[in-house]
């Protein structure tokens, strides 16, 4: 496991973290990994994303109290699918490859299981996303690959769906 930066901490996400989230997404190349474009699409997506902080379903990691990553559980509205949830994760470009993504995911999976009784977490990512390596390390498996799902400047990219059954995770056993 990578050594996390000094002053690293994790807390629940608050509404005010929206500004950091917007700043990261608007850095060059970041929106490639998400379905929305900048402008009204981004603003609508930001409101939906940050809204889960009201259920304490989102975590913000920080270094010296400056936000560096956000991971969120998109809780399901219907009872028959409430045992699972979609996860969104973003790490600020300058803090990538420091082990922060992995740390936030582990804490998020723990939160999902303990607080919300979630049994399965899944993520939808654009092919080539560096997050894929983290997911594989954490025990996620690829369950769907949908070619042509994203289209950007005339080029197509696949959507990958990774899921993890939390009860099968060694680091969550007995918790």
């Amino acid at each position, binding site marked *: 496991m990578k050594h996390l930066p000094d002053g690293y901490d994790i807390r629940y996400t608050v509404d005010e973290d929206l500004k950091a989230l917007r700043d990261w997404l608007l850095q060059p190349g970041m929106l490639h990994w998400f*379905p929305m474009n900048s402008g009204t699409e981004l603003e609508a997506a930001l409101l939906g994303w940050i809204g889960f902080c009201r259920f304490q379903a989102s975590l913000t990691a920080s270094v010296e109290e400056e936000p560096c990553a956000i991971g969120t559980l998109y809780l399901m509205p*219907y009872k028959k699918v409430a*045992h699972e949830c979609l996860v969104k994760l973003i790490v600020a470009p300058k803090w990538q490859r420091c082990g922060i993504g992995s740390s936030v995911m582990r804490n998020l999976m723990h939160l999902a299981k303990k607080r919300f009784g979630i049994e399965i977490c899944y993520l939808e990512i654009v092919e080539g996303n560096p997050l894929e390596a983290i997911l594989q390390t954490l025990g996620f498996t690829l*369950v769907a*690959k949908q070619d*042509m*799902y994203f289209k950007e400047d005339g080029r197509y990219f696949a959507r990958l769906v990774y899921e993890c059954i939390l009860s099968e995770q060694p680091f969550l056993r007995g918790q």
Partner: protein
Amino acid sequence: MSASEIVIRSSRQHEDEYLKKWLKEPNVLQWFPMIDDREIDDAIAYWLSFIPIGACLTAEWNGMPCGMANLYIPIYKKISHQCLFSIIVGELYRNKGVGAALIEHLEKLAKEKFQIELLHLEVYNGNPAIHLYQRMGYKEYGKQYRFIREGNVYIDKILMQKRLI
């Protein structure tokens, strides 16, 4: 009834009553994520919200609605060339070509009106409609395990798609 006797047209707002009736017919909700009236009303409101843009179709037999299908047109540009769809056929009208006629018209609508290149659907394991989707050219591209939970029973969700272009 033959496929030539089925009329397909754009859906109308008041048709929520048919959707609700068909969803509440015996053994239907097992193939949908909703479980009670509140969830059904929520899902129907979302479905019908696509009527104003002309993305919902209703099948009629003798002037009576007998099935509906809907394109969930995406709001994001990067994924606006692909679309998820839903379909339901009333209990009395199954195995008569209504589902196939709805999907055929929906594919045409998707391609010509919305420039959709890739159409896809989600279906729960064991749903007999899987055979219809296969016949219509939809291929499985993934599966989400234990997607539905009712008590201690889990059902997988199968993801299928078809290229229109």
